[in-house]
């Protein structure tokens, strides 16, 4: 088995228009999953109450079906007592993941955020009853793939805007080029 050098990888990715469209479709598909998933993060209580519902119920799984002791401690002692704040944080992160992966803007940065959020979700629910560990592994890996392929450059705004960012001397343009 051989490993392609970066230039060969780039050639392979751009050699076929179909490859680009498939990468773009994959990115949009992942975005739609996040967009769908954010629908049950409902403010202002995010399911906090008796009985626990939605996001609050799933957050408690980190304590009731511990995956990693320090994370379970953090959830029990920091997240749960301040649940409204963390509920809004989850809503903003996941809504932004769907939003920015959809249009392919700063895609590599959001792919990293997606990997992080996949880990957080895994640490909360991996040991919950009836959960399938493949799902969480696949969540992480698909974001790793979006990062590695810079998927926003295929049918996304990163591909449209990078020439302009490259020609600009502003710090924001340089930052956006790095994040794409």
């Amino acid at each position, binding site marked *: 088995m051989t490993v392609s050098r970066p230039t060969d990888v780039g050639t392979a990715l751009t050699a076929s228009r179909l490859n680009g469209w498939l990468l773009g479709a994959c990115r949009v598909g992942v975005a739609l999953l996040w967009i769908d998933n954010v629908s049950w993060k409902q403010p202002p209580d995010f399911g906090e109450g008796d009985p626990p519902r939605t996001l609050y119920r799933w957050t408690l799984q980190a304590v009731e079906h511990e995956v990693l002791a320090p994370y379970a401690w953090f959830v029990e002692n920091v997240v749960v007592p301040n649940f409204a704040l963390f509920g809004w944080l989850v809503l903003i992160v996941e809504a932004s993941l769907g939003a920015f992966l959809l249009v392919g803007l700063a895609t590599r940065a959001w792919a990293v955020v997606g990997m992080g959020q996949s880990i957080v979700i895994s640490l909360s629910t991996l040991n919950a009853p009836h959960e399938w560990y493949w799902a969480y592994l696949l969540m992480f890996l698909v974001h790793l793939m979006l990062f590695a392929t810079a998927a926003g450059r295929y049918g996304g705004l990163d591909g*449209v805007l990078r020439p302009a960012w490259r020609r600009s001397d502003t710090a924001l343009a340089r930052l956006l080029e790095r994040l794409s």
Partner: protein
Amino acid sequence: MSGPGATSPRHPFDRACVVMGAASIVSVVFVAEGLQEFRFIWLDGVSVAIALGVGALACLAGLLARPVLAVVAGTAYLIAAVLQVISTAAGDDWLGGNISAASFWVGLGSGLLVVGLTPRDAAEPSAQPESPSDTSWKGTG
């Protein structure tokens, strides 16, 4: 670059506006309850009018090569997204959509704003996507 009155967008920014506007219009398909678990976004009532109206405005921005219309459409989407979150948090969903619709509109709004505000004389159409390994930029060592 297309001039005012053009009907076929030539600049990549204009094509992006048309695609985002068209995506918004196509999103109305999600009113269909028959989609069941594939109903990624919930739209109803006023939110349908937003998806169609602002989507049409974004398409016009691209077709007429008017960045200012892209900025107006982008701002409208972001305002609609904030109103949708308020509507959901209030519990009566007077805008008719759900949080997923807000997420969708944040994407379109951010995209249209960035496209509308990026100077066009600095842009150059790229024939092919770059390699993922290309992280260089002009003016740096």
